[in-house]
C-alpha cells in the first residue's frame, strides 16, 4: 500500500507536484527533491524504464485527483502549483515561483497501482506522470466521455476530444453516402448496398460497350453472353492470368480489368479441354436452339461447362498453366449467365440451361416452377460412362432424384461408391413420384416436381447439378 503523505507541505517538497499520495520505493529512499521541473523530461518508452529511476506508485485516488490548485479569480484549475503561480501573473496578482536549486531532480518512473496490470510491474513502468494517469483512466477508469456521433466511449477527455474532431471524417463511408464508425457495420452494409451492385454493373457495362462488335444473333437475349464467352476468346486466355493476378491484390473499388476475371476464365478451360471434342454430338435440341447462331465455339463451351462439372476426369487434361480451377470456369460462366439472366427480359438463358430446375426454384414461392425441359443425350451414353465418376452423381444434386429409369449408370455408381445409397436403394421411387429422397414427402416439395421428373426421365438431362444450382441465385429469371 502506498504511504500516505497527503499534505501540502509534502507537495512543495516533492516539487514535481506528483500530487500528494506518493510512495517511493526506490533504493534511494525518499529525500527532498529539488524544486521546479524546468528540465526537459525525456519520456521513457513503456517497458524500458531507466534503471536508476525512482519507481513511484501513486494511489488510485491521487491518480484520479483533479486539479487542486485553483485560481481565485477565474476558477481555472491547475495540477501544479507552479503553473498556478504562472497563471496568476496574468491577473496581475502576486506570484511566486520557486527557484530551482542546483540539484537535478531524480528521475522518476511510475507504475500502475492495479495488481495484475502490465504496468504494475516496475519493469514496465511509465516514464511520466501524465502517461500513468492516462493509462489508469483508460484501462481502469470509467468511460464517461461518449461521442455523440458514433457512441464510442472514452475515459480520457483528451482522447474523446481527439476522436470527436475526426469522427465522421476518418470513419467508413459507403458510396451511397452512409457513414459508419465500425468496420463490421460498414462491411455488412457494403455487401448489401446498391452502391456495390451499381458499381459492378457499371464496370460490366463499360466492358461490354468496349467490344461492341457482335458476331451474330445480336437480337437474341443471350447475345451478351456469347459476346463475353466467345468473342473475347482469343486474347483473353493470356490476359486472364494477368487479370487473375491483379485481382489478388486488393480492390474495394475494382478496376474494369479486375472486375471480370470470372467472366473470362471459361476460356482457359476451353482451350485446354480435349474432352470437348468428344461430345460435340451431344448437344441436344435445347442447346442447339440456344446456340444456334454459333457454330463451333458454342458446343465447345457447353462441353466445357459439362466437363467442368466433372473435374476428376478432366483435370489431368488441363495444362498446369491454366491456374484457374475448374470450379472457376464453371462458376464464372454461371455467374455471367446469371447476370445476363438478371438483366434480360426473357431470362431464357438461365432457364434454358436448366438452372431453373434446382430444388430451390421449383418449390420456391418466389418463382414460378420452370417449364419442363427435355434433354436427350442418346449418343452420349457411352461417353457418360467414361466420365461418370465425376459427372453422374452431380445429376442428383440440384435435382435430388437421380433414380429415374434410364439412369442405371448413375445409380449403380452411387450404390457402389457408398453403402449409404445401397441402403436406400430398395425404396428408390422409380416413378419419381414419391420424392423419397428429398425427405419424407413433406408438403413443401410438392407441386411442380413430379411432372418435372417424368418429363425429364430417360434423358441424360442437365448438367443441372448442384453447382449450377449454386450459381443460380444471381438470376432473377
Amino acid at each position, binding site marked *: 500500500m502506498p504511504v500516505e503523505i497527503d499534505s501540502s507541505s509534502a507537495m512543495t517538497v516533492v516539487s514535481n507536484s506528483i500530487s500528494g499520495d506518493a510512495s517511493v520505493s526506490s533504493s534511494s529512499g525518499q529525500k527532498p527533491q529539488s524544486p521546479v521541473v524546468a528540465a526537459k523530461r525525456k519520456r521513457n518508452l513503456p517497458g524500458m524504464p531507466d534503471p536508476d529511476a525512482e519507481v513511484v506508485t501513486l494511489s488510485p485516488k491521487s491518480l484520479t485527483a483533479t486539479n487542486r490548485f485553483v485560481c481565485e479569480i477565474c476558477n481555472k484549475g491547475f495540477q501544479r502549483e507552479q503553473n498556478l503561480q504562472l497563471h496568476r501573473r496574468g491577473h496581475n496578482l502576486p506570484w511566486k515561483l520557486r527557484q530551482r536549486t542546483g540539484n537535478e531532480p531524480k528521475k522518476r518512473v511510475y507504475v500502475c497501482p492495479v495488481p495484475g496490470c502490465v504496468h504494475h510491474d516496475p519493469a514496465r513502468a511509465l516514464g511520466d506522470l501524465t502517461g500513468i494517469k492516462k493509462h489508469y483512466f483508460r484501462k481502469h477508469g470509467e468511460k464517461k466521455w461518449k461521442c455523440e456521433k458514433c457512441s464510442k466511449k472514452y475515459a480520457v477527455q483528451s482522447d474523446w476530444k481527439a476522436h470527436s474532431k475526426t469522427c465522421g471524417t476518418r470513419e467508413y463511408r459507403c458510396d451511397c453516402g452512409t457513414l459508419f464508425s465500425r468496420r463490421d457495420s460498414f462491411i455488412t452494409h457494403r455487401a*448489401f448496398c446498391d452502391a456495390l451492385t451499381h458499381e459492378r454493373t457499371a464496370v460490366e457495362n463499360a466492358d461490354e460497350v468496349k467490344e461492341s462488335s457482335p458476331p451474330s444473333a445480336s437480337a437474341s437475349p443471350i447475345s451478351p453472353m456469347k459476346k463475353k464467352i466467345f468473342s473475347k476468346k482469343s486474347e483473353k486466355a493470356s490476359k486472364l492470368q494477368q487479370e487473375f493476378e491483379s485481382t489478388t491484390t486488393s480492390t474495394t473499388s475494382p478496376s474494369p480489368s479486375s472486375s471480370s476475371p470470372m467472366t473470362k476464365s471459361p476460356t482457359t478451360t476451353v482451350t485446354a479441354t480435349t474432352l470437348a471434342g468428344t461430345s460435340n454430338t451431344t448437344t441436344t435440341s435445347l442447346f442447339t436452339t440456344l446456340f444456334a447462331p454459333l457454330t463451333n465455339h458454342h458446343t465447345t463451351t457447353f462441353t466445357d461447362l459439362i466437363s467442368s462439372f466433372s473435374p476428376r476426369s478432366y483435370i489431368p487434361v488441363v495444362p498446369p498453366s491454366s491456374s484457374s480451377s475448374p*470450379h472457376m470456369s464453371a462458376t464464372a460462366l454461371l455467374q455471367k449467365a446469371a447476370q445476363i439472366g438478371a438483366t434480360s427480359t426473357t431470362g431464357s438463358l438461365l432457364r434454358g440451361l436448366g438452372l431453373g430446375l*434446382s430444388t*430451390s426454384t421449383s418449390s420456391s414461392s418466389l418463382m414460378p416452377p420452370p417449364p419442363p425441359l427435355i434433354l436427350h443425350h442418346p449418343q452420349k451414353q457411352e461417353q457418360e460412362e467414361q466420365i461418370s465418376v465425376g459427372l453422374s452423381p452431380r445429376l442428383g*444434386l440440384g435435382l435430388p432424384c437421380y433414380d429415374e429409369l434410364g439412369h442405371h449408370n448413375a445409380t449403380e455408381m452411387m450404390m457402389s461408391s457408398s453403402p449409404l445409397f445401397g441402403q436406400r436403394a430398395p425404396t428408390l421411387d422409380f416413378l419419381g413420384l414419391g420424392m423419397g429422397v428429398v425427405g419424407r414427402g413433406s408438403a413443401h416439395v410438392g407441386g411442380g416436381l413430379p411432372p418435372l421428373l417424368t418429363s425429364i426421365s430417360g434423358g441424360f438431362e442437365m448438367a443441372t447439378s448442384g453447382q449450377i444450382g449454386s450459381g443460380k441465385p444471381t438470376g432473377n429469371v
Partner: protein
Amino acid sequence: MMQFTKTTGRLELPTVVSFSSGSCFSVPENLPYGGGSSKSGEHMEQLLVHCANAIETNDATLAQQILWILNNIAPADGDSNQRLANAFLRSLLCRASRSDSCKLLTAVAYRAIEEISMVKSHRFSAVELASFIDLTPWHRFGYTAANAAIVEAVEGFSVIHIVDLTTTHCMQIPTLIEALANRPEGPPIILRLTVPLLTSTNPPPPLLDISYDELGSRLINFARSRNILMEFKAVPSDPSDAFDSLIEYVRLHQLISDAPEALVVNCQMLLHTIPEETAGAIHQMISVSSTTTTTTTTTATTITTAPIQTSTPFISLRTMFLKSLRSLEPVIVTLIDEDADLVSNDLIGRLRSGFNYLWIPYDAVDAFLPQGSEKRQWYESDVFWKVENLIARERLQRVERQEIRSKWVQRMAEAGFRRNSFGEEAITEVRALLDEHAAGWGLKKEEEDLVLTWKGHNVVFATSWLPQLILPATIMP
C-alpha cells in the same frame, strides 16, 4: 354466431364493475419465482399465470377479469415490464381465440385480436436489416464469436463450404467473407454458402423483402470484390423436418465433390426451432403416416439407424439433426442460441420461463431506441412474435423451443462432438463489440463457452464444436 354477438354486447360493463372491487380472486403470496424482473414484474407474472390457468381450465369469466386488469396495468406503451406483460397478455388472447372452447374470451378479445393482427412483422431490405441488427449485440455477439472460431478452424483450407443456419438472412456472412479474404494465407479459392430457404408459412422474424436469389447475388458480388469466388445455394427446407433436404443436399454435394472441402456449419439461433422431445408425439405421428419415406431417409442419413427401427419408439428430430450433422464431418460447428429453457409442454411453465427471459429484449431496447420510433416498433413486434409463438402456438407451429446451454452441450456431446474453446482473439473481438453497445451488456465465460449477458443475466450463449475423434458408432465414410 348469435351467441357470439350477444356475448359481446353483454360482457363489457359487468366485467368492469365486478372487477373493480378486486375481490374476484386473490394472488397467492409467495410463488416460487425470482427471476430478473422487478416487483411489479413479478406481480404481473402472477396475474398472467392466473389468466393462463383460467384459459386452460375454460373459466372464461375469471379469464376475462384478469385480462381486464392486466390490460389496465400493462399498457402497450408502458415501461419495459408493462410492455413485456402486454405482449404476454396479447399472446394469451391469441391462444384463447384459437381454442374452440373459449368462445367467450374471443368475444372479449375481439378488438385486441384485431389490433394484434394489424401488427405485422416489418419486411426489411437487406441494408435496413444490416443496420437493424447492428443496434444490439443480440445477434452480433454470435456473429463475432463464430467468425473468429470459423476463421481459425478453416485455416489452410482453400475450399470452404459454409452452411449458414440462421434467422437473420446471411447478415453474418459479409464480415466472414472479409475475415477470410484478409487471412494471412490468402483468401479461399472457393467459398460455398448453403442456406435453408425456410418453407414455413410463419417463419421467425426478421423478414426480408428481397428474394434469396437477390440476396445471394449480392453476396457473390461482394465476395468477388474481395477476390473470393463464391457459390450460393438456398435449399428449401424447414426445421419441422430437421432441415432434412438441406442435410441431404450437403451430403450429396460431398459425395460428388472432388476437392477436399472444409465444411462449416454455423447455427445461429435457428436450431431451437427444430422440434425436440416434447414435440415427440408429433414426430411419431409423422413417422407412422409416412413410414416409407421417413424411415428411408433416416436409414440413410443418420448413424442411429438401429435404435430407431428396433427399440426406441422415436428419437427427437433435434437429436436426429445433430447426428446427421455429425455424419457430415464438419471441420467446425458453431452453435449460438438464446440461453433459456422454453420447452416445457406445460403452458404455465412456459409462461413463467418465457416471462423471465423475454424481459431482456424489452428492457434492453430502452438503451438504444427511443420510445415511439419506427425501428422500435419493428423490434418489439419481432419480440412479440416470439412471445406469441411461445404462448399461443402448439405442436409444430411452436418453434420457440430454446434450451439452456448445458442442455445443448449435452446434446452435442451425445451426437459425437467435442467442445472447442474460443481463442483469445474471439474474446477480444467480442469485448470490443460490447464496448460499442450499452453498458448493460456483458461477456461471461462459462466452461469453454461464451455467454452474452444483460445486467448479469444470461442472454445468448456461443459454443463451438469439433467432431469427436472416436465415434460412438460406426459411421459411413
